[in-house]
Every structure is written in C-alpha cells, then in structure tokens.
C-alpha cells in the first residue's frame, strides 16, 4: 500500500458513473465495464459506492486460490489479473470465492471478467481510467502521501474485516482519521 495504488473513498462517490463509462473505454475490454456501482440505502439517500477489484494480498487473491484451471495470474507487483482467456473454464469458482463480489461471469462467452488495475495503463505509468476520470476522487490513484497532500484530514487502511477474518488488500480504503483502528467492515453490515 505504500506504493501507488487505488484508494476508494465511498464518502466522495456522487454516483455519476463516470468510472463505469471510463472502464468501458479501456483498450483491453472495450465496451465492458468491470466496475460495480451501487446506490446504497435507496429511498433514504442518494449515497452510492464504487467497487473495483481490491487485489487481495493476505490471504492472497482468493479468486486465484480457488481457480481449478490456474487461470488467474498474480504478478509480482501484486496485481490480480483477469482470468486468462485460454485457461478460463467458466466455472464461476472465483465469483463465489471473492469476498467483494467483484468477478463477473459472461455466460455467453463462458469467461470471467474482472478489473486488472488497467494493467496496460499502470504498467506504462498511467493511472487507471476510472481513477483518472473520477470527478471527485472517490477512486484515487497514487501514493498515500499524494492522497494526503490533497486531503490533509483523511486516513487510509488496507484492512477489511469480515467477521473473524481480516483481509489485507492491495487497494486501499479511505476512512475518516482514527476510524476504528484503521479497519473497515466488509460486506453489508
């Protein structure tokens, strides 16, 4: 997390779906968005939240661990890749294993799709499309120092808690400073 990565700040999401539109523009999967954009507590508020792949580090990539075809590559830089098309058997194990509900199965292609951190862009020094365009920085790409330079009162964590299980993620979550010891709850409370 000390390197450049995505920081997700649900409090800044305005629900505009620029990230969804931008994800569709990515050259490796044009026309398909890998981002989940949810409106929360509909009817009570206009709040919303984007979900991208959290690139789980510990335990490392549950999606890859359960893949019977070894189709999901985790590169040394910690990026958990989309299932490779020549290996994916469309079994949906990864869909069920992901704690964040990120991978999607295209039932016509029988192939898995998920965010690969815009590997074509990040490996060439560009920010991912979603973070580049996000009008409010709800999806931010950079280092923690770069984030804090813009938001002096923010904090970030890479720990997400599901019951007794802690997951350390490669993508960080922005929290209010001092929030719950730097751990955020996963899933629906």
């Amino acid at each position, binding site marked *: 997390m000390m390197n450049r990565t995505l920081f997700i700040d649900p*409090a*800044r999401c*305005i*629900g*505009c*779906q*620029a990230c*969804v*539109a*931008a994800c*569709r*523009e990515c*050259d*490796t*999967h*044009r*026309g*398909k*968005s890998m*981002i*989940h*954009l*949810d*409106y929360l507590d*509909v*009817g*009570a*508020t*206009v*709040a*919303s939240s984007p979900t991208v792949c959290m690139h789980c580090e510990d335990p490392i990539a549950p999606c890859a661990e359960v893949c019977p075809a070894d189709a999901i590559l985790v590169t040394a830089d910690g990026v958990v890749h989309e299932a490779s*098309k*020549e290996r994916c058997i469309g079994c949906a194990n990864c869909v069920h294993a992901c704690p964040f509900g990120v991978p999607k199965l*295209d039932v016509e*292609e029988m*192939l898995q799709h998920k965010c690969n951190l815009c590997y*074509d862009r990040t490996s060439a020094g560009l*920010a991912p*499309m979603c973070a*580049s*365009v*996000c*009008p*409010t*920085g709800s999806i931010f790409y950079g280092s923690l120092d770069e984030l804090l330079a*813009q*938001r*002096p*009162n*923010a904090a970030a964590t890479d720990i997400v808690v599901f019951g007794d299980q802690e997951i350390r993620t490669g993508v960080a979550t922005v929290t209010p400073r001092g929030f719950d010891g730097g751990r955020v709850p996963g899933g629906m409370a």
Partner: protein
Amino acid sequence: MSPARDRTPIPVLPPGVGDFREAGSESADGWRTDQRGMRLVPTHCCFCGVQCGMYLRVDADGTVFGVEPRDHDINRMKLCPKGVVAYQQVAHPDRLVAPLMRDRRGDPLRPVSWEAALDRVASEIRRIQDAYGRDAFGVYSGSSLATEVTYLAGKFARVALGTKHVDYNGRLCMVSAAAANKKAFGIDRAANPWSDILQTQVILVAGSNVAECFPVMTNYIWGGRDRGASLIVLDPRETPLARTADVFVPLRPGTDAAFLNGVLHVIERDGLTDEAYIAEHTTGWEQVRDVVRTYPPERVAEICGIDAALVERVGATWGNAERAMAFHARGIEHQALGVENALAIINLVLATGQLGAEGKGYGTITGQGNGQGGREHGQKADQLPGARDIEDPDHRAYIAGFWGIAEEDLPHAGISAVELVHAFREGTVKGLLGLCNNPLVSMPNADRIAADYDALEFHVQLDFFLSETAERADVVLPSVVWAEDAGVSTNAEGRIVLRHKAADPPGEARPDWWILCEIARRLGHGERFAFESARDVFEELRGASAGGLADYSGVTYERLEETGGLFWPVPSEDHPGTPRLFEDGRFFFPDGRARFNAVEWRAPTELEDADFPMRLTTGRTVAHFLSGNQTRRIGSLVEQTPRPWVEVHPSLGFATDDPVRVVTRRGSITFPALVTDAIRADTVFVPYHWAKQVAANLLTIDALHPISKIPEYKVCACRVERGEAIDPVPPPPQAPGATPSGNEGADGLEAPTAPQGKGTGER
C-alpha cells in the same frame, strides 16, 4: 463508421491469442482497437460550463474512436460520464449527412442538394421580408456553439437579415444571473477562478445540483472542505452535494430571496458586516439594510418552510468567515424572481466584503458549455459584440463602423427568446432560422411552443442530429459537432479555451459558420461574410470586441494553446488576462462602486390551491444534457438513465415504480415514482431531458421574469395522483432512411434506482 481499412488483416484466432502484440486488442464482443497511427487531439468537452480538457483519440483513417484524459488546469484529467462518451457523437449513425427539405408541412423530409436547400432558404427569407418587413424573419441561436458562431449569428441577423429579432437559448439558462451581475457589478462574468475555492473558509451553493450538473466542480468544493471550509447548500432536494453539507437548507422552491435576506438580517443584526468595504466600494446599502431588517429568522422560516435556526446558523457561518465564496445556478435563477435571488446573494457578498481576493468571491455556474462566451458577442436581443449595449449610441457607432454599415441600418433591441417564439403565432415573426436549440423540449408550456412553431410560414433549423424541433422544420441543414471544427468557448470561470478540430464532418455536413455565410452570400452580403474558416471569424471577433467589456482583442489561438486558457478581459496581446475581478475594489461603473439592490421576496407566479396542492420543480440528471438530443442517442447514457421519473416523498403514500400522474394547469404526464426521503414532502421533481409525451415542459408554467425574461421552470403548482399506464419514452427522431443506432434502449417503465441512474447491478 470508418471506411474499410488498408492494413494487414489480423489472423482469425480467438481473441487475445496469437501474436502477443495483439493480445487484448479485441474482446469477444467485437470491439477492435488499432492504435497504430493514433493521434491525440487536445480539446475540451462539448457539454457543460466546466469545459473539461480532454484528448480525442483519432485513428490513422481520421476517425474519432475514443477519449483520453487530459491533465488540463480546469479538470486535472477528471471527466463525467457524459464527457467520457461525448466522442461517440462524432461517428454516430444518427448524424444528419445531407440537407433535408419538405415542400409542404405534413410531407416527409427528403434529402436535397446544398444548392437547392440554400436557395430555398434565401428565397423564403426574401419573400417574407419583402412581404412583411425585415423584422418578420428571426434568428434563434444557442450557447453550445463556439464563440465564433455565436458572434456570426448576431452579425448575420443584424447585417445580412437586418432584423432586430435575434436571441439565444441562454435566455433559458443564464440571463437572470447576467442581469443581476450587470446591475450590481456592471460586468457579467464570474468573479474568481475556481482554484480560489481551495483557499476559502465558507462555500455557499444555492440552487445547484453541482454533483450531477457540473460533476468536476464538486472536487473544487470538496477540496475546499478537505482544507477546512464549511459547506452550505440550499436546495429542496438532498442532492449528492447537499448530502455532504455542513449546513443543508432544504427550503421550499421559490423562497430563496427570503432566505438570503434573512441571512443578511442576521449578519447585520449581529454587526458582522464589513462597514469599511461598504463605505469605500458600494452604494445603496441603507436601502438593503432597511429591507433585510424586515426579514427576521422567524418570518423567513415561515416563508421557506424550514427551521429558523438554519437562518441563524448560515448567518453566523458566513458572517464570521474571513474568506467566503458563493455560487448559484438555475435553481434560484429559473424563477420569476430569478434576478432578485441572484441580487440577494450579491448583497450578502458585498455587505461582507467577500470579493476581489484569493478565497473571496462569487459566481454563477453557467449551464451550457459556452454559456459564458455565447452571451458576450451579440447574439442576444439587446447586445452587440464585446458585451456592448445595442441602445448605447457609442457602442452602436463602433460596431456599425466596424461592420461597415450605417448606424441607422443597425437594428435596435429585439425581444427575448420565449417572447420571440410566442410572436410566431401573434404574427409579428413569420420566418425563423434556428440553430443549436431544441425549444420543443426545452421551452416551458411545450404544447404552446409546438403550436407557435407550426404557425411559422417558413422554418429552417441547423443541427447535427434531427431534434424534435428540426423534424418539424421546412428545411434542415446538417451542421457539425464540436469536434469537427476549431473554435473557442468560455467556461463558467470566464476562462477562454480552445477546441481543436479532430475530424472532418460526415457526408455533406458543414460547419455552422459556413452555412450562415452561404445564406448571407445569397442575400447579397457576401463581402461581409467572406470567411474561409472559424479562425477567420475569430480574428474579426477580436476586433469587434476590442474596447468592449468582454474584450478578446489580445486573445489568439496560439496564446490559448500555450496557456491552456485566458480569462477575459484580455485587451492586448501582451496582457496576461484577468483571472480574478475586482481586486482593486473598483467595479465597472463610472464611480467605480458596486451597487446594492434591495430585494423584496414575492411568492412564485402560481401558488398552491385545493386542486394543485404541491410544488413542481424540474432539473437535470447526470447522464443527460439539456433537451437530450445528444445524450438520448448514446448507448451507455441511455442504459444508465433510460427514462424520466417523478421524485416524491414517502409521506404521499406511493411506492417506487408506481404509476404516478403529475398534473398541472398545462398538462399531465404519468411517470414511474421514485420514492425518497431526499426531497421535501411538499415538492415533487421531474427531470427535463426527454421529449414529446414525457417532456417535463408540458407541465411547466411560461411565466417570465420581467427583466431577464427567464421562464419559471423551477416552481409551479401541481398535484400528484395514482396513474394508470406509465407514459412510454419515444425514440429520438431519425432522418429519413436512417437506421436507428439501437442505442435508444428498451422502453422500460421502471424508475432508475436513484436520481443518478440505474446501478450496474440493476441493468
């Protein structure tokens, strides 16, 4: 789309396999990317007044096929969902690619040659002007055009047609703020660059759903908050920006001036005014002070339907700030009291001396991409280039001399846009050239507007998609999208930016300036319209604006390219531009003093009664733009928000997706309900981007502000009742013989998940 490509075919293999250099270049559903020979063309978005920088991706064949974020000062790569897909208009299958004409109303439009279309337009202009006089032919223009075209539209009307009847669709948008700025400051421009927002301590946003209408501006406002500023939002709906406000004031629509007077009441009562600033830089404070003394918080709370403590809290927050900034948009401006509402905010700003320094300021947030530039150079009924006054003898003499015509041949002020359209049926205007607007969707009381247009003897409309207005015209001339011509625009800060040409127009589509010049030539004014390019027009505009308030004479395309934008006035080529106004405490009046204007609150034109007990307000949603002629054709935007809905409070007893009929004295529409706590219980909201039987403007009132003539879109009386069948969304009009793009979307009858659209899980 693009013609067949001359290149080595890719071997037929499953996507992503084979030559690793091609890996990922094709996904399984047919998208293809070929980046060999790709160019990135720097430009700005075509949509709202933020004018975000972007690159268009152009392939080796000259086809615009994508967007790339651009690290421009305004937006630092950020874009909204409309900006990301704006490029999809360029090679869109719905584009108009040939002039269209019909001989009689009721006949279908048919493609014709440019010669035939332009000759018909010229002969109809001659016939109507010969029979009824020069003023019988009007021009109705728009502010999404490049400034070059807006200048030419005014010159075309005044010189080639010699008519006084020219106005523009900013009349539906920015005129209340413009009138207030002129009255108070003597200049009509936002006072500060938005970077000032990061330095302020209090940000007041009145009547603007910033996060949906100007998404990228949200980051400036939240950037201010991140550095400790308090955010105050006035809105009858808890919008995504209001959700994060330190003080959210959910006032009743149509009561803004009362609230703002109440805030100034608190500030004056508690001795928080800046007496030195008032004494040195303003006039008229005593009258304003006497009026606001009659707006104690209890009275204001009663009028606005809020807690009196909110008035106290906003007064204390603003009054105690060392640096504060106020912004407003259509929410307070689209009212019969629109100018007064803006003046009430200006009074607050002046009384506390919050102008002319970093973090101290004021601005309206212009709605259209070139909403600022489009109201500066003479397509407005009462204005000449350089923001000059058409009734000022010196201004008239300068422009008449510049154009080489006699001063007495320069028409005087005409009438405003809505009045102009109403004049079609009254018979004073018999013919119209329209460009860059879609009044059958965007004007209030839309049924009446359709009848007005049908009363014209001749109507020619320029557009790049067949709008609901163009489809009824006698002649439709195919024009270009923003990416197909160069031109400048001026954003909501007053910053002039340059848009580059990225592609040639499709088929026989032509730039708007070319079309106006061709008509002028046929009318015998070729020598005054001998332009070869938009840049030629810009060079003339520089001279026409020289010495005016909106002075562009020091602006060149090269300087815009080098700097990323210049703030007007720029009176010479070595002038750095003017990012922040009023730094020397001088305003644009002979005595240099700003004017206070006392404002009395009045109730909206149409009040609730037993039959119509609710207040209806209208507005935008993030995935669509204005009349929707552009965005209702783009697949991802239609998918996000396929249809309009009515937003109602749970206390009314409806469930989401229930058919709910909204009834006003003008009409009724049945929408799916979106039930939410995030709206006042006495208010209902309908978005206005859709046409025909689901056009929100079938419901709105055509009451106009007496000065600015802006319609009162934001408040009228209505009732809501359980409906039967939800009114379906008609597909956008198509040119004859065109194949629909398939982007219109299935006509679902359910409301979106939230005002911002459907979640990705619900599609």
